[in-house]
Every structure is written in C-alpha cells, then in structure tokens.
C-alpha cells in the first residue's frame, strides 16, 4: 500500500516498519501507536517567508498537505521555483506536486521542508525530467515531527537531473529518491548532507535504475552525527541487462562525533549488464585526530578546529551545488549547524 494512502486512511497497519527490508532502519509502524487526526487547514498568509523565497521567481506552498499542484517548464524556458512544504501541529497529512520539464527547458527547484509540531507528514513528488533540473532540498523538520518525502523521477534520454538534499533530520525522517534512468547520455547527480544532533533521525534512501546504455550516475552523500542521533543511508543502483556502458559511482561518508550516535549504511550495486563502470565507497568514522592536532598546533582552538574540519568534510558536497545563491545558503546552513 502507498504510504500517502495509508496516512490519509489512518491505517496504522499499512505503515512500513522494521520488517520491511527497505524500511528496517526507519520504523514507522513501531513508532506510531495511534493514528493522528487529519491535520487542520493552515492559513498560508500567516506564514513567515521561506528560506528560498528571495532566490526564486515564484513560490509554491503545500501547507499541511494542501496546495502544490503542477510545475511545468516548456522547451526554451528557464525557471527558478521555490517549493515550500510546511507542516504544523500534531495531525497527519499528505500532499504532493507534479513537475515536468520538457527537453530544452531548465528548472531550479528550491524545495524546503519547514515543520513545527509532532505531525506525521508525507510529500510525494512526481518528476518528469526531459530537460535540466537542479533540485535542492533544505529539510528543517521539527525534532518531534515525522516526515517522509518520496520523489519519483523519470529521466529522459539526454536529460540532466541534479539533486542535493540537506537535512537536519526529525523524530523520524526519510527523504527518498527513486530515479528511472534511461541511459542515452542522460546525466544524474544525487547528493546529500545530513547533520544530526539530539535524538534526530534522517534516512536518505535512493534507488537508481539504469535501463538503457550510456547512462551516468554520480552520487555523493556525507553526514555528521552527534549526541544520540541516527543517520541512515541506503543507496541502490540497479543496472538492468542491456544498460551497457553505464558509468555509476556512489560515495557515502559519515563522521560520528559521539559514542551514542549511529550511522547505518547500505550501499548496493546490482549489475546485470556487461561493460559497465560502477564503484561505491563507504566510510564511517571519527574526526581525523592527527588533522585535529595539526590545526591546534597552529593555534586553532579545539572547538573551532573541529568545526572547521567538519565543515570542510561536508563542504565537498555543498560545493557541487550549481545554483550560486542556493550554494551560499547551503554553506551558511552547514556553518550554522556546525558552529561551536
């Protein structure tokens, strides 16, 4: 059963849980014991501005599941659209948006999640990418909020989809991206940064299915967890039979800054084609103590040195954001979250 339908129908038994392989580290069924009431409608006029509003030509708001609609970009058009997904209160809601970009069209989608309360939220994005899309997501959920965002991306031959997820997590939070990759010189970049503290949880799950030859995928996710936070990275790349000359690389690297923090990572490559170039790298560890001493020997106090090295660690992902304003905003967001 579809998660949005389960939430709307208040069917707890249909929520995914730890017995579902794909959800074993993000157990919703075990967490939510009573079905929340449907969320009440929000007056969007009373909301403060979203983080991306100054960068966008137009803003689309989905408030407690209401709103959204469709973003269409025609050939030859270039648009910068902010999509705000706002959750308030303790209810449950689901909403979504449909995005389509024709060949020759360009869209910068600046998406933000903004939550206050102990809500259960779902957002669905159906994205048809025939041109070029850069999607940047800044997820600021409440520490008590439970949210799932699921993006289904259909990439057309010759198209380009680039994504950067930036998240501070939630009580339970999952940002999922599934991409159907046709090959045909289409390019895909899927990046992510999670910076988690307290008891926050974030799950970055991606599934990329290469169905045709000459496709490229480049993934880089970095995370920093402290306190009792938990980061989850599940990255799956499937290369179907016939998807020859696929070039796919996936990296996930995490820093664990306290004994009680946790990172669960599952990088998977499933390859049924010949003549492919696929690689994945996964590291989970502590901050480099030698580099830390080196910085301190030069006079940088410990807390500042830690912040500098940690910021540099995730900076390599942020640097890949193409939209300049969004990149600066992302940099400031990282610095703010890692400041001593």
């Amino acid at each position, binding site marked *: 059963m579809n998660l949005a339908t389960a939430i709307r129908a208040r069917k707890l038994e249909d929520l995914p849980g730890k017995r579902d392989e794909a959800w074993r580290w993000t157990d919703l069924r075990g967490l939510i014991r009573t079905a929340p009431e449907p969320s009440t409608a929000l007056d969007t006029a009373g909301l403060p501005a979203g983080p991306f509003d100054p960068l966008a030509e137009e803003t689309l708001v989905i408030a407690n599941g209401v709103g959204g609609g469709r973003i269409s970009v025609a050939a030859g058009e270039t648009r910068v659209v902010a999509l705000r997904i706002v959750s308030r209160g303790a209810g449950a809601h689901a909403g979504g948006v449909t995005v389509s970009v024709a060949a020759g069209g360009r869209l910068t989608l600046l998406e933000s999640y903004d939550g206050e309360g102990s809500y259960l939220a779902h957002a669905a994005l159906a994205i048809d990418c025939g041109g070029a899309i850069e999607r940047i997501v800044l997820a600021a959920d409440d520490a008590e909020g439970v949210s799932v965002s699921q993006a289904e991306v259909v990439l057309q031959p010759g198209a380009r989809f680039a994504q950067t997820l930036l998240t501070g997590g939630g009580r339970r939070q999952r940002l999922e991206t599934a991409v159907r990759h046709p090959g045909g010189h289409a390019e895909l970049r899927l990046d992510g940064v999670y910076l988690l503290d307290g008891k926050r949880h974030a799950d970055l799950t991606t599934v990329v299915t290469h169905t045709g030859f000459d496709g490229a995928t480049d993934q880089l996710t970095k995370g920093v967890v402290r306190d009792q936070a938990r980061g989850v990275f599940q990255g799956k790349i499937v290369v179907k039979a016939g998807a020859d000359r696929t070039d796919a690389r996936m990296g996930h690297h995490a820093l664990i800054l306290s004994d009680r923090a946790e990172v669960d990572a599952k990088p998977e490559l499933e390859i049924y084609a010949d003549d492919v170039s696929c690689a994945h790298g996964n590291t989970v560890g502590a901050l480099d103590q*030698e580099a830390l001493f080196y910085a*301190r*020997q*030069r*006079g*940088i*106090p410990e807390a500042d040195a830690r912040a500098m090295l940690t910021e*540099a*660690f995730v900076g390599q992902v942020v640097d890949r954001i193409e939209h300049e304003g969004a990149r600066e905003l992302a940099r400031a967001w990282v610095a703010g979250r890692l400041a001593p």
Partner: protein
Amino acid sequence: MLSVSDLRATVDGNQILQGVTLDVPAGQVHAIMGPNGAGKSTLSYVLTGRSGYEVTGGTASLDGEDLLALAPDERAAKGVFLSFQYPLEIPGVPALTFIRTALNAQRRARGEAEMGAPEFLKLARLKAAELKIDFDMLKRSLNVGFSGGEKKRMEILQMAMLSPRFLILDETDSGLDIDALKIVSEGVNALRGPDRAMLVITHYQRLLDYIKPDRVHVLAGGRIVASGGPELALELEREGYDKYARAA
C-alpha cells in the same frame, strides 16, 4: 627561552623520554641528533602537547611559563611552532583559509587585533614569493596532492606567516632535494633573531650545513647523552651513533 628539565614521557605505556634536560636560550639554534627510535619526534610532540604522549615527570617551560599545563593551541599562541615531519593534508580547507584562521586565532588568544584580509593577502603573497611557492597553490586544499617538498615549503610558509618565537623543526630535510633544501633553509634562517630560538631535529648532518646550530645534542635512549658545538654533528656524520646508542 626554552627550558626542559628531567622530562619523562610515555607513549602507549612505553617510557620513551627518560629524563631530557635541555636549555635553548633566546637567539640560539640547537640541533637534536640521534638514531631512529631515540625519542626525537616524541620530544617534539611532548613539547607541543599531542594527545597520547603522556608526561610522567619533569618540566618544560618557555620564558618561565609552564608549557605542559597549556593546550596545544595555547602553546601555539605563546609562539611554539612545530614543523611536522609529515605535514597533514586538510581536504576542503584552502591553505590561505587555514593559515588566516590560525593567525587570527593566535592573535585573539594574545589579545591582539585580527589581521584583515587585504593585509593578510599582501603578506601571504610576499612570503610565498620568497619561498618560491606559486600563489595559486595557496587557494587549493592545504597539502592535498602536494609533493613532499611542497608540503615542507608550506610548513615554512606557515612559520613565516605565524612568526613564532620558538620553532621546532622535525626532520624538515627529509624528502627534500638539494634545491628545495636551500629554499627551506633560507626561509628558516630568515627567522633567526635575538628574540627567537630553534630546535632542529634531524637524523643527518646535511641540514646543519644550511641551518648552522650553536649547539648540538645527541639524544639516545630517551636522554641527552652528549652535547657540544657544531663539530659534534660532523663527528656523528663520520662515526655514526653506535657509541652513543651503546652508552644509552
């Protein structure tokens, strides 16, 4: 300047320094020579406060101030600089950013005004040119992908920018060809002065042809077993460390 007395230290429970006593007055350059495993690098790490190096006895002070009570960054702000034998790579932090962060952190710690960007860049350009370092290299992540010689030059550049009072050079000549050795030595010699002192740690005499020491000490078995003038280095080069290793 630096005064070390009966300094003892362990690493992983092994007693490496067995009572080092050493005085380096202001204006002087002292060399520490010794066989591998004598405790040369341990001495440099103990003086700079690296974790894992546990002081089990003795004292070390700079101008009368107890160094061992200070955090590594506090020692740096007092003017202690270690040129690492193996300088670290810092991915994602441009060399200029790293040096400016360090410089201003030291200035803040000393209650001085921070150096602004224009003044800093002017100084960096000047010092880089003196060390024949391409300025564009300073925009790249510190030491990432740099050759051994480039990393050593980058250490001397940091030294020149931070202008420390007490310099420890740990095997600065290792990995340097003769041209790089000359450039690095000139950089070090430029910092010699009546208010500064240096401790030059080296296995080979070669470096001391370029950085002339006032005193030479032989460290063996975790202790200074002999001290003398520059001629001692030449004797070691001729005769090796055997007799000192046995004495230890």
